[in-house]
């Protein structure tokens, strides 16, 4: 790649940053109250929030990672996208409307609704912080890896500087814009991303005379695996254990998506349950279109660039989409694709920072430390300070993890969300008897079992691609813990509830059920 190319990348990216910062600044002149900071005053429409939801969810891992995984592993790469699309049905039918009706700012609002406030809120905040920070470090580290490819920055100092710049810009979004600004960044980014992959897809499939089959045919010729890339098993089919690992991953993807804290928090930016429902409908459409496109882009990259060239490039699998863009559209298209990838990282990390800061300020500071008596202005100040701390943590973590194999962090975030959050949310919404002990057991049971299983998994030690390849304490054979930790968390929540002598509060249960379905008592229209 040439210097001129880097200049184009940098200028497209620079324009995006300046434009979004300006919009964030304009959107946030009255960004003072807690409701403004956490939930954008609930002023977004379902359509806007739906686009922002897809923006929050489509990380660089989805764009570069999935198209790359398809370009290299074919069918097995495609499986991720399916889980991520299907997962939105859980969000749509079970979570979105009840979440909007019962809570105000955080996931803790819903989990603690009919339980003892302080322990449950502390647990919900712990889950939120752990999940968000894991997810964020993975994004930041990925940002460093991308630089090598996109900006031609190879020195570790240079990459560290870029990670720091990404971190600072995203903290600025959050501090200046709060939820409103962050939402606009997500909307701009999601539109750019979906538009550019759609155009690229139409162009690619046009090159093959709008014949997907012909494209696949060409792809199999360019892959060392031949016809096998179109069949399952390239990545996960080698043994019974890898197949089990694959099932575990599939489970975490479909159950984790709709319980990621930064996705849940989005439902508060709309005024009522009907708009929350519309957001998910929009998000689902965006996802289905986006992931259909990545299928074409992935196989297109395999056909036009060739698997060998992709795996040989700096950045490996992740370089499939940029290399393809360069192949079909030269430096300008490459610049655009790279800038969109940057924007994606930036926006997702901003969303995560906001979620983590809201959870600390609203659940831990206002409700656990101040016992619900905090001054709202003070609460927002705490949230902003937390955002800066989380930002610094993400920058440091991102630099430390730069170049590491961090894919497991993303998988872990999904498994954590599916095991700590989903059982708790479903129980508290749908099971009358569920009580405080059940809540604590299911959150902490899911959280700790997930983290422990990851620590003792091959992702951390014992194999060539581990973080510590030289030592071996991989007692748990699967790299994804979901298949064990998700049922475990459901079980823990059940046992905690029936073993507790403290009965559920029936009045609060009535209130939560009525409010969840109708919004009565929430003040929402």
């Amino acid at each position, binding site marked *: 790649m040439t210097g001129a190319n880097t200049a184009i990348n940098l200028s497209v990216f620079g324009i995006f940053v300046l434009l979004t910062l300006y919009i964030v600044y304009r959107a946030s002149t009255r960004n003072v109250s807690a409701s403004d900071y956490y939930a954008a005053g609930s002023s977004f429409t379902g359509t806007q929030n739906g686009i922002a939801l897809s923006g929050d969810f489509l990380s660089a891992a989805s764009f570069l990672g999935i198209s790359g995984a398809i370009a290299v592993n074919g069918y097995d790469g495609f499986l991720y996208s399916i889980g991520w699309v299907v997962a939105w049905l859980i969000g749509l039918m079970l979570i979105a409307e009840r979440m909007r009706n019962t809570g105000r700012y955080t996931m803790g609002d819903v989990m603690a609704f009919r339980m003892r406030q302080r322990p449950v809120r502390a647990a919900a905040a712990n889950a939120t912080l752990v999940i968000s920070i894991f997810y964020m470090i993975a994004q930041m580290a990925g940002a460093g890896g991308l630089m090598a490819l996109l900006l031609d920055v190879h020195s570790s100092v240079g990459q560290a500087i870029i990670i720091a710049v990404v971190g600072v810009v995203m903290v600025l979004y959050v501090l200046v814009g709060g939820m409103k600004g962050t939402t606009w960044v997500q909307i701009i980014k999601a539109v750019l991303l979906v538009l550019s992959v759609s155009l690229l897809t139409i162009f690619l499939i046009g090159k093959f005379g709008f014949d997907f089959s012909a494209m696949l045919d060409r792809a199999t010729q360019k892959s060392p695996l031949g016809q096998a890339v179109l069949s399952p098993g390239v990545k996960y089919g080698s043994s019974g254990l890898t197949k089990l690992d694959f099932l575990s991953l599939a489970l975490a993807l479909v159950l984790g998506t709709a319980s990621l804290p930064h996705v849940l928090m989005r439902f508060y930016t709309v005024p009522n349950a009907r708009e929350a429902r519309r957001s998910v409908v929009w998000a689902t459409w965006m996802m289905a279109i986006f992931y259909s496109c990545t299928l074409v882009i992935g196989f297109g990259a395999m056909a036009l660039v060739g698997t060998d060239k992709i795996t040989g490039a700096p950045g490996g699998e992740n370089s499939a989409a940029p290399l393809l863009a360069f192949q079909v559209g030269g430096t300008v298209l490459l610049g655009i694709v790279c800038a969109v990838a940057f924007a994606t990282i930036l926006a997702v990390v901003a969303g995560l920072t906001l979620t983590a800061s809201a959870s600390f300020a609203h659940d831990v500071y206002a409700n656990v430390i101040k016992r619900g008596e905090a001054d709202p202005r003070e609460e927002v100040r705490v949230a902003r300070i937390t955002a800066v701390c989380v930002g610094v943590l993400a920058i440091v973590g991102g630099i430390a993890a730069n170049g590491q194999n961090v894919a497991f962090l993303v998988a872990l975030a999904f498994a954590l969300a599916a095991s700590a959050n989903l059982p708790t949310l479903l129980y508290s919404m749908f099971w009358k008897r569920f009580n405080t002990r059940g809540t604590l057991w299911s959150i902490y049971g899911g959280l700790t079992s997930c983290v422990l299983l990851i620590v003792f998994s091959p992702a951390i030690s014992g194999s060539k691609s581990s973080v510590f390849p030289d030592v071996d304490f991989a007692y748990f054979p699967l790299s994804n813990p979901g298949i064990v930790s998700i049922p475990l968390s459901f079980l823990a929540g059940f046992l905690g509830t029936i073993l507790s002598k403290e009965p559920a509060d029936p009045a609060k249960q009535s209130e939560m059920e009525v409010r969840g379905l109708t*919004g009565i008592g929430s003040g929402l229209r």
Partner: protein
Amino acid sequence: MTKALPSVSRPATPGFATFDEHPHSLLIDGDGEPDFGAIQTSEDFLALKRRVTRFIVPATLLFLAWYVTFVLLSAYAADFMSTPLFGTVNVGLTMGFLQFVTTIIITMAYARYAKKRLDPQVDKVRALAETAEELA
């Protein structure tokens, strides 16, 4: 807040039994807050709950079963999934794409069902506690 309420009393028996006494049957308690226990057992709310359950339970089971089938077939029936269907496009890729299609179909069906069958019922239940909301 309490003094702003003209004549509020807890319904003697929960539910629609109070319709006879108050033409604008308010399911609100002595403090002007909605009486959630009474609403929860009211006929209108139970009907809403039934309508919600009737859709989301079968739909959730259906899409989970369909997804799990796809995942299991991919893991343990690779040969079947590799059978070519249209040119080089095989059963697995087609089924994967159909997952997208069914997701969209269920999403739109739910949106439609919610608009036609759930939202009007929600409005009915909300009317039970309307005055309480306005005064609160």
